[in-house]
């Protein structure tokens, strides 16, 4: 009977803390939001379930959790902690992204640059709050609104904050349809929101094939730190656009990205054991993250208005909000807000250009921060 009590002491019930309990509730909330509100289900469901699993109190002496050497979860988490999964996800994203609208209207790319101001202002904010420069850099990248980039940079600059940063990034990405619209309406007039943009021209196959190679060379040479992420993104896109490697592109954007997404989401979630996650730092990170999304959105919109001062064919400044990455949700948000003013103004196509540029921009930003803060 002593054996039974010994075992009981090692059940989760005994070791359960209020923190674990809270985290399990959070995990369930993630899953619920994903299912009922359809917020980023492909990431929130794996992360949410991972959070639940990661907060079952592990038994001392058994290799169970992400933090125990030789545990299965640690092997899976290896792809996160070493930054291997994010480039593979970028490969799949590249193989599913159509850069046509960007190619047909290159001006809009600059909106994707402007939105990255969210990264750097958040970096300053994090410095102010007392984070070390490396930590601040990793936190700043939440403003890039790009989950894989955030995980990649955190794994290099501040592995101990990886969980909080990843969860913050994905949470706010899921909440893009909630966060962006008020800012968009606040910073634009009704007339601006009514601007119609010209139908983009047709792009030739040759342009589509040359683009990923040329754009990679530019990014890679300017910010070598972004080489792996950007390289995989454009490699995937070349596999897609070359047409001769269609079966590879197909696998990259289906089986491969799915497998990586499952393992990444689940193990990131499982790394949020209350003991490591529920800290005042995490709270600050969540605060800064919310701020960074707002700044990024505002940055894109304001730069669109600035560009309009010089342009003959005006840009609808709503499109600037898609300069944060959050592909394709922020583009859809732009589209929806545009439709509210004018049901015949279809902004989705136009918003895809800064959306794609935002992904590239935040990867470059990550490369810069990595270079500057690691050397």
């Amino acid at each position, binding site marked *: 009977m002593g054996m039974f009590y010994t075992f009981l002491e090692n059940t989760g019930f005994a070791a359960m803390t209020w923190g674990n309990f809270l985290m399990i509730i959070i995990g369930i909330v993630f899953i619920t939001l994903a299912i009922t509100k359809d917020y980023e289900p492909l990431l929130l469901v794996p992360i949410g379930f991972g959070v639940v699993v990661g907060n079952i109190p592990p038994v001392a002496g058994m290799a169970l959790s992400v933090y125990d050497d030789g545990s299965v979860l640690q092997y899976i988490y290896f792809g996160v902690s070493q930054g291997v999964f994010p480039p593979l996800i970028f490969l799949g994203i590249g193989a599913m992204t159509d850069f046509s609208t960007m190619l047909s209207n290159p001006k809009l*790319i600059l909106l994707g640059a402007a939105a990255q101001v969210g990264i750097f202002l958040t970096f300053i904010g994090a*410095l102010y709050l007392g984070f070390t420069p490396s930590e601040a850099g990793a936190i700043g990248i939440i403003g890039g609104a790009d989950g894989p980039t955030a995980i990649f940079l955190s794994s290099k600059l501040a592995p101990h904050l990886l969980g909080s940063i990843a969860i913050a990034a994905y949470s706010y990405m899921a909440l893009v349809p909630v966060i962006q619209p008020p800012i968009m309406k606040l910073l634009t007039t009704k007339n601006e929101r009514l601007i119609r943009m010209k139908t983009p021209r047709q792009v030739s196959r040759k342009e589509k094939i040359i683009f990923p190679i040329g754009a990679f060379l*530019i990014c890679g040479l300017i910010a070598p730190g972004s080489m792996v992420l950007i390289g995989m993104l454009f490699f995937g896109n070349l596999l897609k656009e070359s047409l001769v490697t269609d079966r590879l592109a197909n696998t990259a954007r289906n089986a491969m990205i799915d497998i990586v997404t499952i393992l990444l989401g689940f193990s990131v979630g499982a790394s949020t054991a209350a003991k490591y996650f529920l800290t005042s730092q995490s709270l600050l990170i969540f605060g800064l993250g919310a701020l960074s999304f707002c700044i990024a959105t505002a940055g894109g919109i304001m730069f669109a208005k600035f560009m309009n001062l010089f342009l003959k064919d005006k840009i609808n400044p709503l499109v600037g909000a898609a300069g944060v990455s959050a592909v394709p949700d922020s583009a859809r948000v732009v589209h929806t807000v545009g439709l509210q003013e004018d049901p015949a103004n279809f902004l989705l196509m136009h918003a895809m250009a800064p959306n794609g*540029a935002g992904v590239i921009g935040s990867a470059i930003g990550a490369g810069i921060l990595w270079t500057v803060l690691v050397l």
Partner: protein
Amino acid sequence: MNFSWQNIIDGNGIGITITGMMIVFSGLLFISLFIAVLPRVLKLKDHFTSSPKTTAEVPATVAAPPSEEEIMAVISLVLHLELERSLGEGHKLTISRQKRQGSIWASAGKMRSLSEGGTHA
């Protein structure tokens, strides 16, 4: 944690921010210029090496007007693709899923392969 403006100065926050934004902008500006120039370069190149090959290939696919059967077949194909897509999106058509599952149960001797019969199964 101590909140302080000094942290920003110590961490060279302003310098990194300005440098960073300049590089991000210059990177995307270069891409933008590259894209803007690209079609002109390609047109210039095509001008020198005029090749009527690509245009000649297309008409081959435009064949005789489709017969009634072909139209019917195309309808069913479109329906199928549509179905496949919607299955992928949110499984409203639970009927077909159920059927597939059933047929696998009926088949003999597959132990751990209770797949729903996708093309992989």
